[in-house]
């Protein structure tokens, strides 16, 4: 199920020895962020596409199939490759509302 199997020279145990603490802290940080959103006085982001994308991305982390980063990246991408007629804003936001309507339809 691994993509590019065998391409990391370190053993799994060594990877855990070196990096488990760092990723443990990241998981706690994300858990705290989700709890914080729950505790927010203004529950105004129910339909926020960033939150939707984040929750979908967290599901990818529970999947056993390799290539998770690529799947998370695509969940956080606008997959509609058509040009915008006019610029709506200057900055990217980290996730796309458009992608969820089109799914992979824009890829053709």
């Amino acid at each position, binding site marked *: 199920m691994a*993509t*590019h199997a065998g*391409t*990391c*020279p*370190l053993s799994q145990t060594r990877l855990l020895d*070196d*990096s488990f603490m760092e990723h443990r802290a990241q998981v706690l940080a994300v858990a705290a962020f989700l709890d914080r959103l729950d505790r927010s006085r203004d529950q105004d982001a129910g339909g926020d596409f960033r939150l939707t994308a984040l929750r979908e991305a967290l599901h990818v982390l529970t999947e056993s199939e390799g290539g998770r*980063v*690529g799947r998370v*990246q*695509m969940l*956080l*991408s*606008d*997959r*509609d*490759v058509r*040009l*915008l*007629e*006019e*610029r*709506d*804003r*200057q*900055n*990217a*936001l*980290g*996730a*796309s509302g458009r*992608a969820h309507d089109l799914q992979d339809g*824009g890829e053709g």
Partner: protein
Amino acid sequence: MRYIDLHAHMISRTTDDYHKMALTGCVAVTEPAFWSGRDRLGAQAFADYFDHITTFEPARAAQYGVAHYAWLCLNPKEGEDRELARQVLALIPEFLSRPTVLGIGEIGLNRVTRNELATFLDHVELALEHDQMIHIHTPHLEDKYKGTRVIVETLAKDGRIDPARVMVDHAEEHTVEMILDHGFWTGFTLYPRTKASPARAVDMIEMYGPERLCVASACDWGPSDALAVPEFVLEMRRRGHDEALIYRVVLHNPASFLGQSPKFVRPDAPRERVAAD
């Protein structure tokens, strides 16, 4: 380990950063033209910017033994304004002959609009007319996938473009394959939060090999790290990779790409090049 930082907005950094980069082994930086944080007031501001990064920055870098080169353009964030683009494109040629200018960049797309693509293509024409190398910015975050596809597919269709003279930068896991598959050079920028981390850049080198891959800090006025390339070197060593592979990615590769410009003085001796190939 000696290294080249192929993408560094030194105009936004302090002289202390040059100092620390020199201490960590940096021998050369290349500075693509980019956005200042808000839109510039007009064409003269661009001329002033081009002058700054081709006079003051090379002199500041030289104090620490770091070679400084530049790429010129109107950046993708301001590319929506077609009239401004015409004015800036008109004044670029007079700067192209400066001794440290390597080509046109970082051109590309931001929100991936019709006007941005038109401005991008105007820059490509300018590069072709003046036989310049090209450095490309791919969009950030949710716009990266579609923007990279538009750029790569547009350039691939144009028979006049030699992909070996084009660097497509800011690649991530979902765009690296399409860039490599089309024969372009590919850059990973080690920029906290919004681009690739050193660990993820090492992952991609493990998966795709070092061919036509470079890393850079993309340090600028935002939360970024002028020492991101040495951080990458440290991560490569932790991951058990040998010094020859690290050397290849942080010095030999960028020198091979940049060395296609006659203005670029390769910091690696010819003997080192043979060993690395």
